[in-house]
């Protein structure tokens, strides 16, 4: 379990991370969202000891990252995929990491196969594309199959198939009891990958909750064969009805079960009935603009 308490980072008079607190539980994928410069990467760097915090703490199973006996065995980190010497081959780079962490050399071949770089392993990293470097970084983070993964913008440079592969990888990791924290600008990708959202704006956490809680809103979207008739029935029951996108009716303050029951009582056939959900993009801009 990762616990961050009152983490703050100041550079002179500028506060880039302001009293951030959250806890990451095992078996979850948490998305860390925020605009450029919001403090996501700085928070991750403080969590992993790369940047000293001005105040506050970040612990992994109760211990600061720097006090873990073998951090690479516990936390797999991808913060800067381009932080690889271009003169080394992919295999050499991973072998050095593997020997530092203390995993067998055979594990290098396994992760290269896993990320699809086995054929490029003998080539110098300087000749890799952005996506290949990203995969190499993911491979390095997975060498010890650590319980915790901290990934900063892991989908950078990946094609749609690669993004789907990474999503399955992270969700599978959480399903096996692992803990995943990933930051991303790709809102659509995050929405399909994570269970929980942490939204940061101007250094402060502005939202923290399950995706369904944050995106759900009080209302129902419904389409029917007889929209006019359904509208009269719903308005007669005291609900405010608006016409939404794609010809649907948006009924604020109404549960889908209630709308369905009213339609059934009036003998109106429904073609679609669902809870009203905000888009992640709308939520993102609403929260970060307020920050």
């Amino acid at each position, binding site marked *: 379990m990762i616990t961050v308490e009152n983490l703050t980072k100041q550079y002179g008079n500028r506060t880039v991370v302001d009293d951030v607190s959250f806890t990451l539980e095992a078996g979850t994928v948490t998305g860390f969202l925020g605009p450029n410069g919001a403090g996501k990467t700085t928070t991750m*760097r403080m969590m*992993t*000891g*790369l*940047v*000293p915090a001005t105040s506050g703490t970040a612990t992994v199973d109760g211990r600061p*990252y*720097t006090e*873990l*006996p*073998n*951090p*690479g*065995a516990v*936390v797999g*980190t991808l*913060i*800067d995929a*381009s*932080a*690889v*010497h*271009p*003169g*080394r081959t992919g295999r*050499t780079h991973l072998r*050095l*990491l593997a*020997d*530092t*962490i*203390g*995993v*067998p050399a055979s*594990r290098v071949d*396994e992760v290269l*196969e*896993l*990320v*699809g*770089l*086995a*054929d*490029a392993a003998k080539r110098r990293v300087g000749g890799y*594309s952005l*996506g*290949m470097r990203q*995969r190499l970084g993911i491979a*390095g983070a997975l*060498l*010890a*199959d650590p319980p915790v993964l901290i990934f900063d913008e892991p989908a950078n440079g990946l094609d749609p*198939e*690669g993004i789907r*592969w990474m999503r*399955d*990888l992270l969700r*599978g*990791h959480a399903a*096996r009891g692992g803990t995943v924290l990933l930051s991303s600008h790709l809102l659509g990708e995050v929405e399909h990958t994570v269970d929980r959202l942490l939204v940061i704006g101007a250094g402060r956490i502005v939202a923290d909750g399950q995706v369904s809680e944050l995106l759900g809103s009080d209302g129902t979207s419904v389409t029917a064969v007889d929209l006019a008739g359904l509208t009269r029935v719903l308005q007669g029951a005291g609900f405010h009805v608006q016409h939404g996108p794609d010809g649907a009716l948006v009924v604020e303050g109404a549960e889908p079960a209630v709308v369905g029951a009213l339609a059934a009582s009036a003998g109106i056939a429904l073609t679609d009935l669902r809870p009203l959900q905000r888009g992640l993009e709308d939520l993102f801009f609403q929260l970060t603009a307020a920050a």
Partner: protein
Amino acid sequence: MTTTIARPTPAPAAAPRPTVRRTGPSLPTLVGIEMRKSLSTRSGKAMAVAAVLLGPAATAVVAGASTEPLATVTGPIAVMGLLTGYLLIALGVLSTAGEWAHRTVQTTYLLVPHRGRVLATKTVAVALMGAVLGAVSTALTSGVLAVMVDGASWDGAGRAMVVAVVAGAAFAVVGAGTGAAFANTPAALTSLYLVLLGVIPLVSGFKPEIAEKVDPAGAVLNLGQGEQTTQSVLILVGWVVVPAVAGWVLTHRRAAQ
């Protein structure tokens, strides 16, 4: 050029975890890894090869072109040891500043968060490489002298060879400390070579009594010929310690990003 990238393999549903060492790497393991880091790049390999071959090559050229008889081999051995040391400075700088230049220092600190431990192992690693490369170079230089030079005295040659090896290690450590302090390869190299090859020789022209108290080149040559031993050792120790301390302090204060 078209590159076909293999598609990633779907992760196995419940593959067993790999065997992982529970503790961090031991110091000998880290030293070995740091040595492999230095020699795993083309620049590092080129630097090592150049450090080995410069001395004997220069000796062969000078021996072949010189018409004057050589009285003793201690001077040439010490001089070539010094030249090799100048090259080994770059190896040391690359081992520390090079990590900041390529941002690989982030990965290093993620796996070994104790920066003092990392710097200490890098120091030991470059010292060992400097000593080994210096020893190989000195042996080759001595071989060239033995083959190409007749009549020279070999009295004191053993001492000169030891000094050349020590100089290799010392200069490599000077480079590592300076590289750690600057965290910038060009700045570290330029500063060191400017001081060693520009400022000190310039000062020796105006204030030789000051220059001889700080010049590591003079210290190496004097040690190689068995002269001013105490002062020469102190000068070399100072050159090793001051950058190392500066590197230690600044490395601990610098954010890795």
